[in-house]
């Protein structure tokens, strides 16, 4: 392992094209979205929701991964942690995204037009947007606080101060993880499950936050593989760490598959109309090939590929698997949301809708670039983990 000072004070200069390219992508994204929203059809709104879920989940999931590594006192992840932190600046943008969605609620919130009286206590617009907005804002604020504690801890001079900083970070990490599970369960119930207001699946919340972590992990692997040379992290992101990341991804692909199967099997076996309606729309007719694609790209494909040890040691083999999973999960988010709104036919593949992910990539690129170019590429606190004691009150 390199000495801490080798990697801490590295002066990262991003390639010049990053900022202009990101700005161009954002401009195209905004213009395309505006064009789509101005049209008569609602599908741009639907894809806004899909993209909101995907990209917010990705960014928040990355920060949460860092918190998970903290909470578990993992010693192999200083470089990974740092990359995870870089996504935090996307979160304020996703709040704007959410406000936009709440303004256009008429276009996607199905139960506004067909209210469900027995669920009115939960499914009423005021409470709905307040609780979700509050949850997202809280997660964003805590994520920023988490990074703030890091920055403050890095300034610490004495061992005593470092120890204190570590303790505070560890405690917040645990809080962040717990809150993430709750907030993202509620988001899943509200922004996805409630679109088919008669459908319930108690596992759906957990499925959603687990797949979110899977998604974020795939993104971290891609980022780590691309940036490890630029950020001089070859040692801290060597074959061993890549294997560990690959194994984690293997675990999460298995967990996601398991959670999917647990829901599918229970619903299939129970064969109750209010439950099966959700599956029938997605597994028959126009959406059926897409559902198979999700099965292959998001669940089984990455799982089987990651079972091969050779895939995990080299970035050139690991990245394609991560890309496959990322693609699979994007399609999966699409299948979770849009068939509730357009049961009979595929929707959301027009040119304006493609501009939305482009804009999101631009924002993410800017966010990551800003973070990586201003902060050291590895936090001194993650290297000095021996001064960290785990959480106890």
């Amino acid at each position, binding site marked *: 392992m390199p000495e801490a000072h080798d990697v801490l004070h590295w002066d990262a200069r991003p390639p010049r094209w990053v900022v202009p390219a990101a700005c161009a992508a954002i401009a195209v994204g905004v213009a395309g979205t505006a064009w789509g929203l101005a049209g008569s059809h609602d599908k741009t709104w639907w894809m806004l929701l899909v993209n909101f879920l995907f990209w917010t989940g990705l960014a928040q999931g990355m920060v949460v991964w860092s918190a998970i590594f903290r909470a578990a006192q993992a010693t192999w992840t200083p470089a990974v942690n740092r990359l995870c932190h870089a996504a935090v600046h996307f979160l304020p943008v996703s709040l704007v995204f959410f406000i936009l969605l709440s303004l256009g609620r008429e276009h996607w919130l199905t139960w506004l037009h067909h209210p469900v009286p027995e669920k009115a206590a939960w499914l009423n617009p005021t409470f709905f947007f307040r609780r979700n907005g509050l949850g997202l804002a809280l997660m964003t604020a805590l994520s920023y606080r988490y990074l703030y504690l890091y920055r403050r801890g890095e300034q610490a001079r004495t061992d005593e101060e470092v120890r204190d900083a570590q303790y505070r970070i560890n405690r917040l990490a645990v809080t962040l993880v717990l809150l993430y599970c709750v907030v993202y369960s509620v988001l899943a119930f509200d922004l996805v499950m409630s679109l088919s207001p008669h459908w319930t699946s108690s596992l759906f919340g957990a499925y959603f936050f687990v797949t979110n972590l899977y998604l974020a992990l795939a993104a971290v692997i891609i980022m780590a593989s691309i940036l490890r040379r630029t950020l001089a992290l070859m040692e801290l992101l060597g074959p061993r760490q890549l294997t560990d990341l690959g194994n984690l991804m293997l675990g999460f692909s298995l967990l996601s598959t398991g959670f999917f199967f647990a829901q599918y099997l229970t619903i299939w*076996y129970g064969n109750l109309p209010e439950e099966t309606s959700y599956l029938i729309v997605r597994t028959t007719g126009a959406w059926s090939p897409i559902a198979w694609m999700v099965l292959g790209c998001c669940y089984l494909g990455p799982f089987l590929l990651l079972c091969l040890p050779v895939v995990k040691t080299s970035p050139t083999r690991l990245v394609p698997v991560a890309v496959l999973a990322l693609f699979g999960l994007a399609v999966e988010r699409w299948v979770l949301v849009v068939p509730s709104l357009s049961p009979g036919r595929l929707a959301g593949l027009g040119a304006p809708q493609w501009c939305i992910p482009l804009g999101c990539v631009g924002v993410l690129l800017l966010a990551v670039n800003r973070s990586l170019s201003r902060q050291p590429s590895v936090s001194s606190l993650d290297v000095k983990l021996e001064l960290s004691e785990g959480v106890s*009150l």
Partner: protein
Amino acid sequence: MTEATLYARVNEEVLQSLDPPTRRYWMVIAGLAAVFGLGVAAYTYQLFMGMGVAGIGHPVGWGVYIVNFVFWVGIAHSGTLISAVLYLFRVRWRTAIYRAAEAMTVFAVMTAGLFPLIHLGRVWVMLWMIPIPNARHLWPNFKSPLMWDVVAVSTYFTVSSLFFYLGLIPDIAAVRDRSTGIRRTVYGILSLGWQNRYEQWRHYARAYVAFACLATPLVISVHSVVSWDFAMSVLPGWHTTIFPPYFVAGAIHSGLAMVITLLIPIRKWLRLERLVTLKHFEGMAQMLVFMGLIMTYSYGTEAFAAWYSGNKFEHQFSAWRAFGPLGPLFWGMVFCNCVVPMVFFFKRARTNLTVLMVGSLLVNVGMYLERFVLIITSTAHDFLPTAWGSYAPTIVELTITVAAFAWFFMLFLLFAKHLPAVAIMEMKEQALGATHGGNGHG
């Protein structure tokens, strides 16, 4: 301290625990065997008198026997969790305790496996559940969750026993090399002629990793299958998608608690304090907090989903379960499984053996209550008010239940005095890792 002295010390400390047992030990074993004998008598009585002597009937067809089955399968889970999952995660505190946890797994599955047979009534037809070609071309119905159970639990028993034995082989060889006479012969046979040769190690290491990788998804699947025994029905309180992960978490929760409950007295009795330290208990207590949080999430989500569904059967059932005659059991389970583990957020609680013992016992009680509440209430209070009923275990069922605990503890005590309860080879390996910078035989 040199490497060799370190090894010698580990060897000595573990092997001293196998010194010939005292008379008191045999008296305890005899006591447990007697209680087990009572259970056998009760079962024989049931066999001759018929299932009427048990409290199950209409509408509650699954009583304490199935509660025991689920409870013991649950206990069986943390062993494989500790030995396989924590091994793959390279958690250091696993080494000193995994052997005891694995033994517990094997004995708990052996206990659990008895209950479907006891519950079966006409036990001799159990052969019908085994998929073997037969004269009448009758095959089991593989679409039935009960058949999945047969496949899953027998797979789990086979795999966890093999994994347990695999880990034991080098250690039995170590015992063989220190013993004489008939003991030497017996341990010699059990160690399969193990010679600590590189030619053996290189295959052994691969096999061990393969087992760990295979056991991890297995441990998750088995309790999922058990949960599907319930979730595949359409009863309120049973038919819910969260059951598999919730059962797995519950299983690990109870299993960890049982490991703590067993290890605290065992380490004192076998004088293993220097190998099994407070740090190990701390690690387990932290996991208990984690599992307690998952349990809380599951209970919360289950209640929320029932409320959110807007289904009046779900509503009335949830209300009855929490506030009906069995309400105290429900709240007892919430208290023991969700509130009690939270004391282990405090370092002082995690490092205090009395608190650990009381906490783990309460979690065990809580998990037993959970299975009871879960299994009994749904059938007692389903869709038709005319079919509502109640259930209380009879003396026969209670005797068999208590006997199962005696059987489990008897097996565990026999194990602890006759096989190394702490993994000698891996403790040495950890010592080697500390001087050599290694990380296990991966």
